[in-house]
């Protein structure tokens, strides 16, 4: 990627300086609310700077609920599921984009079709099945539910489709079999797509509330998002604590995002083409 010209740069910065405050406004609100008493969270008009900052909110959230255990569980689930997805989705995507066989497109349409059906509709049969397998109230149920995502296959396939077939032909002539091509050519070229799939899966599983809510019964197995909802009880909600916990739960997400977004600039994908 070439350096943009000086005037283009100034224009870009100007545009970004208009857009970014608008996208970060909710962050400001979350931060300010996380330092407030509940009664001061929703006021007319919004009070952006808390009168007396309640730093204690960030301590209370660890005392009121077992947030440490929840964080561990969430990390465990998120990492396992993301890794399984990266492998199975990229593997399947190679089959769907670079192998030719009968019924390939029909099978692929099956994948796309399942994305289109709202989860509410098939949640109950899924639960009944898990219950019969005695997997309810286990992390395994969530891992099995989320690891074989049609979305991941779709995303990876669309990226791989645009990798030139000439590259694969050259490798075949060099004696690589399909698995070798997948491992040595396609995977390295797919780094940007793998990075975005990692970000998406991580964020989805990290922020998933419905899955853990339905499938986990024991407190020791629950996740951060369920924990955050524990501050909303039947008759009152502790929004100061909710926002403090939400702010903390954003930290891993953004660490990952910043670490992985560099795959979108180094031209990893294209560097292979010249070789």
């Amino acid at each position, binding site marked *: 990627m070439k350096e943009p010209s000086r005037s283009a740069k100034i224009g870009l910065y100007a545009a970004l300086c208009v857009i970014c405050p608008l996208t970060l406004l909710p962050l400001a609100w979350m931060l300010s609310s996380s330092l407030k*008493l*509940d*009664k*001061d*969270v*929703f*006021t*007319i008009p919004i009070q952006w700077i808390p009168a007396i900052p309640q730093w204690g909110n960030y301590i209370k959230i660890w005392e*009121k*609920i077992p947030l440490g255990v929840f964080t561990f569980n969430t990390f465990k689930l998120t990492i396992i599921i993301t890794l399984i997805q990266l492998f199975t989705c990229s593997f399947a995507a190679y089959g769907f984009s670079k192998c030719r066989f009968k019924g390939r497109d029909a099978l692929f349409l099956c994948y796309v079709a399942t994305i289109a059906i709202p989860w509410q509709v098939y*949640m*109950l*049969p899924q*639960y*009944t*099945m898990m*219950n*019969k397998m005695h997997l*309810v109230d286990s992390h395994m149920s969530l891992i099995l539910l989320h690891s074989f995502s049609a979305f991941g296959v779709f995303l990876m396939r669309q990226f791989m489709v645009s990798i030139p077939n000439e590259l694969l032909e050259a490798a075949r002539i060099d004696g690589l*079999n*399909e*698995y070798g091509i997948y491992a040595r050519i396609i995977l390295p070229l797919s780094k940007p797509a793998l990075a975005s799939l990692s970000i998406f899966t991580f964020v989805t599983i990290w922020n998933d509330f419905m899955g853990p*809510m*339905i499938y986990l*019964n024991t*407190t020791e197995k629950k996740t951060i998002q*369920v924990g955050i*909802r*524990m*501050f*909303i*009880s*039947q*008759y*009152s*909600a502790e929004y100061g604590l909710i926002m403090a916990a939400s702010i903390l739960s954003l930290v891993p997400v953004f660490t990952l995002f910043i670490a992985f977004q560099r795959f979108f600039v180094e031209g990893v994908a294209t560097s292979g083409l010249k070789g």
Partner: protein
Amino acid sequence: MTKLTRIISVLVCAAMLAGCAGAPAAATAEPQAQAPAAQAPEATAAPTESPATETPAEDVTIKVSLWDAETSPTFTSVINAFEAKFPNIKVQPIDTVAADYTNKLSVMLNGGSEVDAFWIKDADTIFGMVNKGQTEDLSSRVAASGVNLADFNGLADSFQIDGKLVAMPFRTDYYVLFYNKAVFDAAGVPYPTNDMTWAQFEETAKLITAGEGADKKYGAHFHTWQACVENWGVQDGKNTILSSDYSFFKPYYEMALRMQDVDKTALDYATLKTSNIHYSSQFYSGNVGMLPMGTWFATTLIDKIKSGESTATDWGIATLPHPEGTEAGYTVGSTTPIAINSASTKKDAAWEFINFVTSEEGAKTIAKDGAFPARLNPDTLSIIVSADGMPEGAADALTVKNIVLDRPIADKVTEINQMLGEEHGLIMLGELSVDEGLAEMAERAAEILK
């Protein structure tokens, strides 16, 4: 391609075929999966054999579904009291966050989960469970244990459906009037009495409203729920929200609109809704003179005054204002029942549990935490009002003559309630006139009940 890969691909293909065969099988297995569960209602174990006083000899663990275990003491303390009295029955709570409790409970019951007893958060949702035969008939157990259903102030009658007692009322909450004494003192107006009509309420709100802008003290506050207007229409017990003509809501919609738009004695619905204003924060900040709200608010308020979050510290409680021509002491409320899963294999232990938590002893246990037991009588009420922080005169204010259920336990009530919520928003925003809104309610109710 090497020989090895060829072998692998053959193996993989075989597995694939197996997988393909497995998929439709799994799909068709689903309908059958329901069969055992569906048979469950027939398996109504004859409970008459086991006298309720005799506890099962073996150690058993029952699973009980509940909510807010982390944040509210009610369920935990009654479970602890039970385990202390019945050491051979262990209670394993299944805790779900309140907002999603109803959904999770139904998924568990429909999906065949091994839950033995469950509390129901929105009493009207029990009707669907009863239809599916998911609740055990408790009539014979109640008779065998000598429970007098009259002790529940008529609340138990709501759970007599088709001659079966489908649940036991555990706690109850009803609307009362909370008021901030400071707002009344500033205006030099006497505090609300326990015999106030809605017309007097509206007038009083005018007298105590004062100030402008951020410091304005509003005479009254109606939360955004449709209940906070519509409840006053069913308060006299003559109508329910299942109706073909909703004109009984009319005076209260007119009152609420007058107060928010003309007299400006209550904050308007649009502002409350778009700014997410919760009634509690308005009351804590001392911006509100009178707040018609459920009894559950009392304990929260006391806690927040102790923690210093509520700057409104001098408060009072009065009986809910009543319509002209209806006796004072008629109020609207709801109840939280507990039921036994008809598919449970530990019904005797589950009954011991339910019988305990709804007994006088269980009632006193939860009253100590500030929760209103369904067994509301002078004894339990005196425990509640003697709590530290309860205002003077609470005993009289909380003694009511009749509690009308805000939502009757009947078919389609949940759908009707949803529809009323939508129309409520339109009327309060002025998108529909009161008459148009009420007419649309009637029209849509007819479609739903058809």
